[in-house]
Every structure is written in C-alpha cells, then in structure tokens.
C-alpha cells in the first residue's frame, strides 16, 4: 500500500525578471507505508521544493499529492528543516519547543508535558529540557527539532538535509539515532540528502533526481540488513550501493 503518492507533480516559480523557472516536472513517486526513502540529487535541483509540496507548504503548479487513508489536508507531517538554528523557537526552552506540536493539537498541559518528556528521554535530551536552544551545540539543536517533530505524532516524517551542517562524527551519531527511532516507530519517512553515504545508510530506496527541473532519474534499492551499523558502513555491499548512486548521479552533476 502506498502511503504517499506524488503523481504528475510540476512546479514553476514566476521569476522576478519575468518568465518562469520550472523546478519540478511531471514527477511521480510512490512511498510505501513505513518505508524510508531518500531523495538524492544535484544542488538546486528542486528536492526541497518537492518536499515542501509533499508537506503542503507550497501548492504544486499541477499534479497531486495524496496520502492513503487520509483525506486531503489531514495527514500530519513531522517536518525537520535543515536550518535548526532558525527553525527552533529561541524564546522557548527545549522542552517548550518540543511541546509546540502537542500544543497545536490542543492537548492540555500535563499531557503535552508528558509527551515531550517521553520524546526527550528517547532522544537523550532530558538533561537539556530546561536549556534554551542557543545554549546547545548544533547537533543537540537538530535533535531538538527532531524531538519536536516526533512529539507532534505525525503520520509521516519529512526531513530536509537535517544533518548537512554537522561535522562527520556528529552526523554518524544522528544517523544512528534516526535509524533507531525510525525502526521503533515504523513511520513513512522521506529524507532529502546530498551525502551519498548518508542516503545509503538510512534509506530503503534512494530516488536519484535529475538536475532542474527535477524528475526521477533512477530508483536504487538498498538491501542492506537492519539495523545498519558501523560495520555496515565499511562493508563491500555498502560501497557497491554508493557506487550505484554515484553512477546514476554523475551525468546530472553540472
């Protein structure tokens, strides 16, 4: 069963100097229930736009996005933005940031506190509950943003290059944590990445996009067993998959 169906989606933006910039062209993509899909493509190819369209943040110029079992507009997305420094609310503590989703859902105070505490505990953030985002390192801030998305109890997760601003060792930790949480929750996830190893480590399928306007160039299945570990990262199969992604990508990089 397809959880997210993107059918025939196109998106153009009017340009300041007149004319139109076509960013996505008649793109089709089905994501199965509980699947982890990585979107991979050259810089500026329209990955983020596509993710925003799936999240309902921008309407497509044509085509539709539908969610199985949910009428339009009722599927809840847990969105994680790349820019964690800006995306968090600096006037709220970590705990209050995480409570934002439950607040939007209209939960009462004790319940949303409980929800937030549970998520903070799961992600190892409890000791930062009363800190403000500006007192945290980049990694912890991004983890807080992920916690906020979790506490919103979404039907699916959409992550836009969440780890691209972190250093390598922090990124490995975060990918580890994300995989664990994803395996526990089993929620459909679409993850935009521009790091090959990250996409291969996390995803069930990697959708390689063309340069702008984005279309699906190739879909690569990742059959590495889970949970994937440091050992996986060093394995022959891992590198073979990376190679496939790079080969699909190479003609698209300008």
């Amino acid at each position: 069963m397809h959880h997210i169906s993107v059918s025939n989606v196109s998106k153009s933006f009017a340009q300041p100097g007149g004319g139109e910039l076509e960013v996505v062209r008649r793109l089709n993509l089905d994501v199965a229930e509980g699947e982890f899909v990585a979107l991979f493509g050259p810089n500026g190819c329209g990955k983020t736009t596509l993710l925003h369209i799936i999240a309902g943040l921008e309407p497509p110029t044509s085509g539709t996005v539908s969610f199985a079992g949910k009428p339009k507009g009722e599927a809840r997305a847990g969105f994680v933005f790349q820019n964690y420094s800006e995306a968090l609310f600096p006037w709220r503590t970590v705990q209050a940031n995480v409570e934002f989703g439950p607040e939007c859902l209209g939960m009462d105070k004790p319940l949303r506190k409980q929800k937030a505490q549970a998520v903070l505990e799961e992600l190892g953030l409890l000791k930062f509950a009363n800190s403000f985002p500006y007192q945290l390192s980049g990694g912890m801030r991004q983890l807080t943003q992920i916690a906020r998305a979790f506490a919103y109890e979404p039907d699916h997760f959409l992550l836009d290059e969440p780890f691209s601003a972190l250093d390598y060792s922090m990124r490995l930790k975060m990918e580890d944590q994300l995989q664990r949480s994803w395996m526990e929750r089993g929620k459909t996830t679409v993850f935009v990445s521009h790091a090959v190893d990250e996409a291969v480590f996390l995803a069930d399928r990697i959708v390689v996009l063309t340069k702008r306007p984005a279309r699906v160039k190739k879909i690569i299945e990742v059959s590495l067993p889970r949970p994937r570990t440091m050992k996986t990262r060093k394995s022959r199969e891992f590198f073979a998959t990376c190679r496939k992604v790079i080969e699909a990508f190479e003609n698209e990089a300008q």
Partner: protein
Amino acid sequence: MANKLLFNAASVVLLLAAWHAVTALGWISPLFLPAPLEVMQTLWNQLVVTKEVWTDVAATLWRTLAGYLLGAAVGVAGGILLGYSARAHDSLEFLMYFLGSLPAVALFPLFLLVFGIGDEAKIAVTIWASAFLVLLNTMYGVRNASRLRQMVGRTMNIGRLRLLWKIILPDALPYVFAGLRIALSFCLVVIIITEMQLGTTIGLGNRIINEQLVYHTPEMYAAIILTGMLGYLLNRAFAGIEKRAVHWSGK
C-alpha cells in the same frame, strides 16, 4: 564587574575635574556655569535637607511613565496591525510617517486646547511622541519575523491567530524592545519640555525654567543633573527588564 565600576567612577571624576578646572580658571562666567561643588551642594541641600525636589521628581516620573506606557500600548497595537496586515500598511503608510514626523512638542498648544492645562495635555503629547517610535519598530519586527519559523507553524496546521500570538509576536519582541528603549528616553525629554511651558507649577522641567528665569544657575543645574540621573535610572531599570524578556536576542 569591579573594573566596570572603577572605570565609570573614573570617567565621572574626570568630567567633574574638567568642569571644576573650567570654572576655577574663570573661563566661563558662573552665571552660565557655576562650580561643580556649588551645584552639588545645592543638589544635596534640595534632596536631603529641604527635600523640596522630591515632589518635582515624582511629578515628572509619573507623567513620563503614564505617557510612555500608554504610548507604548498604542504603538505595539498599531505596529502589530500595520506589520501583519499588508492592506492596513498600504493604506496608512503615508499617514503614519507624516503624523509620526510631526514635532510632537510643537503640537502642545493644540493639546492644551483639547485636554486643558492639566497633566492630560502633557501626557497626551508624550503618548504621541512615543507611540510612533514603538509602532515603527513593532511593525518592522512583525514584518521581519522569521519566515522559516512561521513555516514550522504551518507544518503543524497552526491557525492564523495562533501563528501571530505564538510565533510572529515573540519573534518581533527584540524589535519591540528596541522601540521601547528609544521611546523611554524620548518621553522624559518631551515631558521636561512640556513642563517648561505653561500649565504646571511642579516638575523638573518647571524647576529648570523657573530657576533659569531668575538666574539661579546652581539650582538650574541641580535640576538638570537630577533629570539626567532620573533618565539614567529609568534606562537601567529598562535594560534589566529587556535582558530578561528577550534573553535570546543576539544569541
């Protein structure tokens, strides 16, 4: 911290020394600038011995705060409206800048006519003067609120009112406080000027002009220094509130 205190004390002492030198060397007639010691003695006398200035301080403080707080309320409300609604902004833009640019103090006669010669006219001028500063800053704060954080709200299907209350307004708060800070100093100046006009027998501005007219120069400087100290204390109190209210600003 101790260093800060030391340096501040040193700069004050230096200023007083320079003042003393200028008067002791006879470069300036005592009619225009009396010796600092004489001014300090007058000030001490008025504050501690006769205690005559306290009613003036209280009157000036009350008028300043009343005008300031009401002006701030008007400014914040108007700034939110003009910042949030493009239609309100586009239809009121000219009027806002025009009215805001009118010299508030020059309108004092009009305010006297409308509000009578009591405190109301002075407070009304101060509201006028401070509201624009707060409004302008609030409006910019609302308009410059982070698009990304508003997007976060939209991914969680937040309603328009909640978006305004929970995301846009807190985001605008550092700007609002910048406006409030400028307005506070400005309000004190405006109140002092209106007190120098007709319509009152108390207030620091009233004291300054009265002493000036009869060439009581040390008394005049004592009142001026008192005004400066009042302004300093108001600003310090404000800075303390600001630091707590927008603790994330600049971090």
